[in-house]
């Protein structure tokens, strides 16, 4: 029952054979070896597996890979690299918003989706946008601060983004 599909991940086309029941998170991690996407609960509660699907944050543990054919998938590996960090990634580091780091990929992608839509979010906007991402270490204060600081940098910097 396997079917060959094309997944567009971080702008690159990947041809993969999937079962209709294969979840996007497992295909990303186990087949494409994009292990930056984390699996914390498998039931859509923790948000560690968040990726962007056509720019919107989704729980990749609740999404069938076969339904993502032809759509734009962005994972943490597509946000920035160690040599060329996204403003959000730099803000997370500078503000101490990362402790164990397991929730960071999902947090960052939810934050990216927010800033793409709303470049000047209030604290409440940020908290609402990140409500689906659980962090067990930080207590969220520094994460909210990091997103807010990234928003200011992006709106102030020429050309925004990176």
């Amino acid at each position, binding site marked *: 029952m396997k079917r060959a599909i094309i997944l567009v991940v971080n702008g690159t086309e990947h041809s993969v054979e999937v079962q209709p029941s294969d979840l996007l998170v497992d295909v990303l991690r186990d087949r494409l070896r994009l*292990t930056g996407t*984390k699996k914390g609960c*498998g039931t859509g509660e923790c948000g*560690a597996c968040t990726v962007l699907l056509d720019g919107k944050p989704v729980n990749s543990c609740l999404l069938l890979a076969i339904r993502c054919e032809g759509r734009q998938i962005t994972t943490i590996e597509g946000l920035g690299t*160690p040599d060329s960090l996204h403003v959000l990634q730099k803000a*997370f580091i500078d503000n*101490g918003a990362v402790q164990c*780091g397991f*929730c960071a990929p999902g947090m960052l992608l939810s934050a990216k989706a927010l800033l793409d839509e709303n470049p000047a979010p209030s604290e409440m906007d940020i908290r609402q946008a990140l409500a689906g991402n659980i962090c067990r*270490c930080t207590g969220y204060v520094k994460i909210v601060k990091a997103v807010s600081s990234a928003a200011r940098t992006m709106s102030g910097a020429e050309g925004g983004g990176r």
Partner: protein
Amino acid sequence: MNGSAIGVSRPRHDAVLQVTGRALYGDDYERPGMLYAKALRSRHPHARILKVDTSRALKLAGVKAVITAEDVPKNRYGFTHLDQPVLADDKVRYMGDVVAVVAATSWDAATEALDQIEVDYLPLPAVFDPVEAMKPDAPKVHGDSNIVSHIKIRSGDVTEGWRISSEIVEDVMRTQVVEHCHIEPHAALAELTDDGTYVIWSTVQRPFLIASDLSRILQYPMNKIRVITPAIGGGFGGKNEITIEPYVCLLAAKTKRPVKMVLSREEEFCGTTVRHPYIVKYRSGVTKDGKIVARQVEIISDSGAYVSWGESTLSKASIHAAGPYFIPHVRIDGYLVYTNNSIGGAMRGFGVPQVGFAYECHMDNIAAVIGMDPLEFRYKNLLTDNSSLPTGQVLEFVTLRETVRKAVELVGWKKEVEWE
């Protein structure tokens, strides 16, 4: 490197890897030819195991091995008490006990094989309330008593304390089970190399402790056991001890292939340690001017099915049970009790949050009974330099009073406080 690190905010050295998704956590590792392991857990909180039949599971496509208690060289472990089986043998003592573990060529094949393992149980009466479990006629989880340990701390003479008290206040407080909920589940991957070394990538917080535990369980020299801890997605005490590492080692030896295991979120709740629920009874005697002169504390800690870190957490809780107050006459009794509940283990604060919650609620209640301001009442009784604790330890460099005054000022809790 120059200057002091104090007062300077420095970024984590591994933060760049974390925010770019490059940091490797337990489940991010893989080895060529790797197999996937899944555990079959008990269906009963308390039952005798009559028979385990793995023959049907072994015939399934993709299944490479199934291990049961017979495969474990030394089937008991624990930090202070060797009471916990790696794989249940005579009995299951809680719903999280593992009876068998399957290694297969995919997660799906391993999961499907679990249904094909037949276990005959003889259900036994179970006990879930630690107070019930302390009674002589309660069902026994191990041996002939459910009371595993009794920690006693005595200081002064409480009878004299009650005599000189003008008020005696009693309270009973209960705290609940808490699961650590680190976002990353437990994961372990083991490989037995050609030179006979076990290499284990594990999400454990204490690599050397589990290397020594594995050495005893596997009856294998510790210098041939190498534990690698990758980036860990939170622990909070929940990854303090051995869990799934013996399974992947035993299966790697049996199949001659690397074996990985990752717990589901459901297993994190039902099959790993939790914060001990406590029942704490306080009785304190105070004089008219608000000095605490006597305190009696009884702590009942629900250990669950095994001891794990229960005795050490109870010991720390007992040492702290009188609170940060100088009290001349103290009597503390801590009981660790087996039940058929989830296993209590290490968790942030190690027993102290439970008693801290209880004695501060108790302090508020005493203040209300004697009609004194709760802050003033606490301040009057705080430990100072040269105070002795119920354990006999004499304190030095105590800054509690200064800390409380500063906190009151910063919080703006009250305009006027008359410091003694």
